[in-house]
């Protein structure tokens, strides 16, 4: 097991290095100038700024400087999006609201997704199942930003039940949470539908298996067979979905952020890419890459927990 974990960490590190190298060169090969100074600016000033950031040196030399700094855990300063602010500070200052939003969203997605999935499986081929399946397909098909715009217009603008945009408060308060409800719902619909659909399919299959008959024959109630046997077996394919849902807690949606005025990381990422603020873009990518790889290792390890038949790091059968 330990050997397996070490192997996975080494593989993750290699992936991490490849991502960093590829992203560095992709960003620097993008068309356009890193310094968008006015063309009328004096040449000496331009050269001064270029020299400070080593922009007048060959790309491979710039890469060397970047890697040297990264090895010292120095991720540099934002050049344009937040001039003079360390890159990691920029990431951290935008992260809390992204996490809050996605955290609440995950809390909504999990129970509702599972409840709908179970009910649809249990009531398979009934009118409830047909209506629910239609809604699920609708929620999966319609992009979240369309739902977000509709909710904002109807619930926020016309009915005035919710604030149109996120409340501008530095910390999470009830007012701020209340203003988060619409973006939370907008982010949740897709996830609920996705989990419900997968769970319905898995559970409907499990319910027809022989061991379910055995469970009933042993004298278990219908509810007990459902929750102890059917649900557990149906959840194996969903294990990774659940874990990546938590990874999604750190990700953010640009369109949802734009519609509801959420100061999340997506806006910063877009501004960094469009503004050729390569240091900041690299910093955000590195952050997400690290978190993603870490979560992938956790997801791999979790399979063994959910399903004891899956062994991690064991030798192949001879």
């Amino acid at each position, binding site marked *: 097991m330990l050997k397996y974990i070490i192997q996975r960490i080494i593989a993750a590190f290699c992936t991490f290095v490849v991502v960093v190298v590829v992203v560095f060169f992709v960003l620097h090969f993008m068309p*356009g100038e890193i310094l968008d100074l006015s063309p*009328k600016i*004096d040449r000496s000033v331009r050269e001064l700024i270029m020299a400070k950031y080593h922009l007048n040196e060959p790309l491979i030399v710039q890469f060397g400087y970047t890697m040297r700094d990264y090895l010292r855990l120095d991720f540099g300063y934002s050049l344009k999006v937040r001039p003079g602010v*360390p890159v990691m500070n920029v990431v951290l*200052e935008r*992260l*809390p609201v992204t996490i809050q939003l996605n955290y609440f969203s995950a809390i909504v997605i999990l129970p509702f997704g599972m409840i709908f999935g179970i009910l649809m499986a249990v009531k398979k081929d009934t009118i409830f199942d047909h209506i629910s399946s239609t809604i699920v397909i609708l929620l999966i098909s319609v992009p979240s930003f369309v739902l977000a715009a509709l909710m904002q217009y109807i619930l926020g603008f016309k009915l005035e039940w919710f604030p*149109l*945009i996120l409340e501008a408060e530095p910390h999470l308060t009830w007012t701020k949470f209340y203003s988060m409800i619409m973006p939370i719902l907008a982010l949740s619909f897709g996830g609920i539908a996705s989990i419900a659909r997968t769970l319905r399919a898995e559970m409907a299959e499990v319910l027809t298996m022989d061991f379910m008959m055995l469970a009933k024959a042993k004298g278990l109630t219908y509810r007990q067979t459902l929750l102890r046997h059917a649900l557990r077996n149906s959840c194996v394919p969903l294990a990774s979905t659940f874990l990546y849902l938590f990874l999604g807690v750190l990700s953010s949606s640009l369109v949802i952020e734009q519609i509801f005025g959420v100061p999340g990381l997506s806006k*910063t990422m877009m501004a960094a890419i469009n503004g050729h603020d390569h240091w900041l873009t690299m910093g955000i990518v590195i952050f997400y890459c690290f978190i993603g790889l870490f979560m992938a290792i956790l997801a791999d390890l979790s399979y063994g927990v959910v399903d004891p038949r899956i062994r991690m790091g064991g030798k192949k059968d001879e």
Partner: protein
Amino acid sequence: MKKRLTRILSVLLIAMLLLTACGGGGNSGSQTSNNQGGNNSSTEDKTNNGGSEDEAPAGDGSGETTEKVLRITFGDTPTTLSPFNNASDYELVNDIHATLYREVYDVETQSKAWLPCLAEGDPVPSDDMLTWTVKMHEGYTFANGDPITANDFAYSFKMLNDPKLANRNITLSDLVNGEAYLAGECAWEDVGFKVLDDYTLQFTFEKDHEPATVRDMRAFFWMGTGVIHQPTFEATLNADGTQSSYGSSVDTLMSSGLYVVTQLIEGQSLVLERRTDGGAPMADIFTPDRVEYTAVSDPNTVVQLFEQGKLSYCVANQDEYANYSGAHFVYTPNNYGIFLNSRTPSVEALKDVNLRLALYWGLDRDNVVPTVYGTAMPSAYLYMPYATMPDPADPDNATIDYHSSPEAQAIRIDGHPATQSGYDPELAKEYMQKAYENNGNQKIAITALYSDYNDKARTWAEAVQSCWNSLFDPNMFELSLQATANATMYEENLARTALKYDICIAGGWYQDPSQAWNNTNWVPDDSIYAYNSQYCIFADDETMYKWNELFEQNALGDYKRNDQGKLENAAKMEEILYNDCSFIPCYSSGNRYFFADGVRPIVEEGDWSLEFYRMQTIFE
């Protein structure tokens, strides 16, 4: 083993989520502060006196709200509030950091003007105009009460131009030894800048780089020269003095202007409050007591907020608002149009000016432009429709409308007067007939490039195509279209080094409406300024040299301080461009504004750079 692993995984997940979710976002994120002295009315005070958002939406016209609150949106919070590195929030940065002179709407002259801010009176030039002395007003203070003196300006100016910091807004190259200092070849003391006493500054310019007028010298003090507070700035420097986080949060700045920042939630909101300590400049010019900026980038959300009474004004460019009354417009200083490659090897007919003039006169801008760009201003002028020039009678203080001047009125395009409409279908057909004959009576078929930037860009290209193809005989002329990547269009097609196009229905040139004749990139090492012109290409070298000669005369030569000569030259330059006809001007893009009841802009039509002078908004 299984249970233990489950526990470890669960703990790891929860710990990670909690640690990140509960994080405060660092020091620079979201915070409110009252550490800047001055006014510092707290949020509670605002609520108590009826100024809260819920109780008194801006501009509700109730007349009961004593506090003048301006509520507006921006796309995102400013990248920085430092005057040294901010690239675009000119007004906002100077609301917080005062400069010696500030560009505002002058009620007296009914025009935009640079008025003394921290300065006392006008800058005084020496006889040769190379040395300028500026007297500072005594009695102004930072928000914490520290007096603002010439030494504070000197420190700010030195830090702005510090080669180690390499700030974006460096402003030193025109001063004596400025470039040498930036190159590390001389000391700061050798630069043409001196503090004569506690309230007097002196600037010495290199010959040919000196301001031509008092107005130009006032304009030297733009955003970058905003005065910063030395102890506050030094606290934000990193160990080797190469980076400063000044202006990235409430705690890392100190106001020298009329407004203090009381709240900055990165990416979400910014609140300014007016100082009431009597130590700030321009208190009699700027009107709001409090300005609340909210970051919203979705245009529909902005309009909904406005309709709910939560904004003082908004931009509503959506077509649905085209017929709403009470709209005010601001036009950007870009002249968008169509580039014609008069030297293209692939279409011989484009070398014939008759074809180019046929296309110029054959575009029905007044009908085509509004169908695609509802808020744009159609224009066939090569200089912006609202271009101005210094009034030769009083160049320091007044401007004239360029296109109304006799010099501009006298311009002829192959004998025809230039008009803003620029549409004459019969004339266009005559030119097309000549072009067709010159082409050996062969049909002229051209493929035009257009940008794939968005649907509007495609629709615009199709509208132009439709206009020309329906006007001209299909046996004589036909235009087809080809999309090209917007990101690389300038570098790979339009740039003078590339010129890979026949006709390009995208782009245009930026113009400073106060000197529309100056559309070059000003690269002094190249002897021919036309090579760096945003005009792209001239049909022949003779025309180019002629234009270049006039440009040099205006920018550097005899007419630098001769405003009548400059005006005459500007008109001659525009006439050259019209008759060269390698660019067909079409429109200036614009924004449609609506104001809430109870607030009124100080001008009916907005200015290209200062829009509606938001800090001079009238509260009724």
